[in-house]
C-alpha cells in the first residue's frame, strides 16, 4: 500500500497576530512553526495505515527551505520519506500550490506506482482556501471526499465519515482516492526520541517548482478590529464567586 500526506508549515501565532511593515505577511520573527492540525491528523492516519498494511508512506510540502522541519516532524511520527517543493518564501496561492503538488505526485507515481490514498487537510490553517486537495484529486481523476472525521479501509474501497450538522454523512469510494481530513480524525501520537533520531536520516527529495503569477493575488493583510469587550473584573479568588453568580443571574442563564 502507498499513502501520501500533504502538509503545510504555519506559524504558532499565540495571543496576538503581528504583521510585517508592508502588511503582506505575519511577522514571524519570534514565532515557532508547526504542521497545521488538520494535516497532522492526515500524517497520523497515513502512519497507522502503513503500520497495519505495510508499504510506503510519503509526506509532501510546498514551502520555504525551513519547512524541512515539518517534514522531519512528520517522519518522526513514522512517515518513510519526504518530498519538499521548495519555494523562496513567497506565498503561493492555492491554485498554484495544487498545480505544483499534482506535478510532484505524478512524478513520484510514475516511478513508484499510484498512491492508494493521498491525505490533505480540509483547509490550510493560515490561508484557508478550501481547495488544494480537491484540485489535485480532479487533476488525477480520482474521487475526493472532504472534511473527514473517520476513515476505514474496506478492501479496495474506503468508508469515510464527514461531519455535518446533526451527525455524520457517510461516503464509500473506490481506491485510489484523495481524502481531506479535519482535526479529530484521530489523536496524533507524540514523536518518540528514537522516532526523531530515525527522521534525521530519512530521505528528503527536493524539487524547486517555479511560481506562476497568482490569480488570487494577496495585496495586504489586516488584523480585524477587536470586539470591544470590557474586561470588567469580578474580583479575585474564591471570594469572586458571589459576583460571578450575580452576573450569571443578570445574564438570565441561572
Amino acid at each position: 500500500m502507498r499513502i501520501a500526506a500533504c502538509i503545510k508549515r504555519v506559524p504558532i501565532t499565540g495571543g496576538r497576530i503581528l504583521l510585517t511593515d508592508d502588511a503582506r505577511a505575519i511577522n514571524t520573527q519570534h514565532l515557532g512553526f508547526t504542521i497545521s492540525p488538520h494535516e497532522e491528523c492526515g500524517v497520523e492516519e497515513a502512519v497507522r495505515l502503513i503500520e497495519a498494511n505495510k508499504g510506503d508512506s510519503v509526506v509532501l510540502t510546498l514551502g520555504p527551505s525551513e519547512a524541512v522541519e515539518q517534514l522531519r516532524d512528520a517522519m518522526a511520527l513514522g512517515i518513510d520519506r519526504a518530498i519538499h517543493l521548495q519555494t523562496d518564501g513567497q506565498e503561493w496561492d492555492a491554485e498554484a500550490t495544487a498545480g505544483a503538488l499534482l506535478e510532484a505526485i505524478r512524478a513520484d507515481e510514475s516511478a513508484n506506482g499510484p498512491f492508494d490514498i493521498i491525505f490533505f487537510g480540509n483547509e490550510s490553517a493560515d490561508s484557508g482556501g478550501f481547495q488544494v486537495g480537491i484540485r489535485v484529486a480532479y487533476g488525477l481523476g480520482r474521487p475526493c471526499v472532504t472534511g473527514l472525521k473517520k476513515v476505514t479501509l474496506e478492501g479496495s474501497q474506503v468508508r469515510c465519515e464527514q461531519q455535518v450538522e446533526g451527525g455524520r454523512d457517510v461516503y464509500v469510494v473506490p481506491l485510489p482516492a484523495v481524502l481531506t481530513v479535519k482535526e479529530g480524525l484521530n489523536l496524533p501520537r507524540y514523536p518518540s526520541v528514537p522516532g526523531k533520531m530515525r527522521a534525521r536520516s530519512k530521505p528528503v527529495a527536493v524539487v524547486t517548482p517555479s511560481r506562476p503569477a497568482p490569480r488570487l493575488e494577496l495585496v495586504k493583510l489586516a488584523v480585524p478590529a477587536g470586539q470591544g469587550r470590557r474586561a470588567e473584573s469580578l474580583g479575585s479568588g474564591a471570594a469572586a464567586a458571589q459576583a460571578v453568580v450575580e452576573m450569571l443571574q443578570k445574564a438570565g442563564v441561572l
Partner: protein
Amino acid sequence: MSVLVLMEDGGPSRQTLTLARKFGEPRSVRIDAILPFAPDALATALAQAADELDASAVFAAGTERGNEVMARLAARMDLPFAANCIAAAPGDPVEVTRLRWGGSLLEEARLHSPRPLITVAPHTVAADDGSVPPEVDLHHPHDRDLTVRVSDHVEPSSAGVSLAAAKVIVSGGRGVGSKEGFAIIEELAALLGAAVGCSRAVTSAGWRPHTDQVGQTGTKVAPEVYIACGISGATQHMAGLKGAKRIVAINSDPQAPLMLNADYTVTGDLKEIVPAISAEIRKRR
C-alpha cells in the same frame, strides 16, 4: 448579466445574495437539487449552468458544502476561487476581502478571473431581503460524477448539550491540569445546564475528546455565556468565540490574552474559584 448562486436554506445564503447582486441578476441552483448530496455532480451542473447563462460570476455561502462544491467547480473550470469573502467589488481584477486564520486575519486580494468564483463567509455580511432568485434547470447527472455521494448517515454519538447549540459553556484549558481536573468543570456545567468545552491543549493531551474543542479547528460556538477556565486565549481559540455574547475568563495570569479580551474576569486559581462558584449556586437554591 446573470450571476449564478448556489443556494442553501438559512442565513448564509441570504447573506451571499447581498454580494452576488453586485455582479448581476441572480439565478440559483439549490444545493439539494441533486440528492443524495453528490458534490461532483453539483459542480458539473453548476459549470454547465454558468456556461449556458454566460454567468458573470458564481457565488455560494462559505459553508463546508458551499466551499467544497465551489472548489470542485474551480477545478473543472480551471479558474481561481476565493473562499470566505466578506466583501467583493466587480472589476478586472475583482477586489475581494477574505478571512484567513478562521477569521483572525483579513486579506485584501485581487481575483484575476474571467468568471470570479466566490464564497461568502457566514455571518459577516448583512442578509439580502430581495426576492429568492429563480432556479435554473439542471442536466441529469452523469454516472462518473456520482462516485462521491452520501450513502448513509450516522447520528451524533455524544449525549448531552451540543457545543454548537449550547446557551452556556464551561470550558477548560491546560490550566485545569489533568483529565481528572475536569470534574470541577463538569460539576459547574451540570449546575448551569451547560456544555463542557476545552482548548486544543486539552484535546492534544487526551484529557477530552476533540468534539469538546472550541476554536478554529474545533467548534465555533455562540452561547449567551462562555466561561473560560485556565485558557490563555490564543488567536485560534478566540476564532471560535466570535459569536459568544459574554465571555468570563478565570485565569491566574491577569495578562493572559483571554483576560484582556473577556467581558468579565476573575483572577486566581481556577481550582479554588470554580468549586466556589458551584457552591454559591447550590447555596442559592
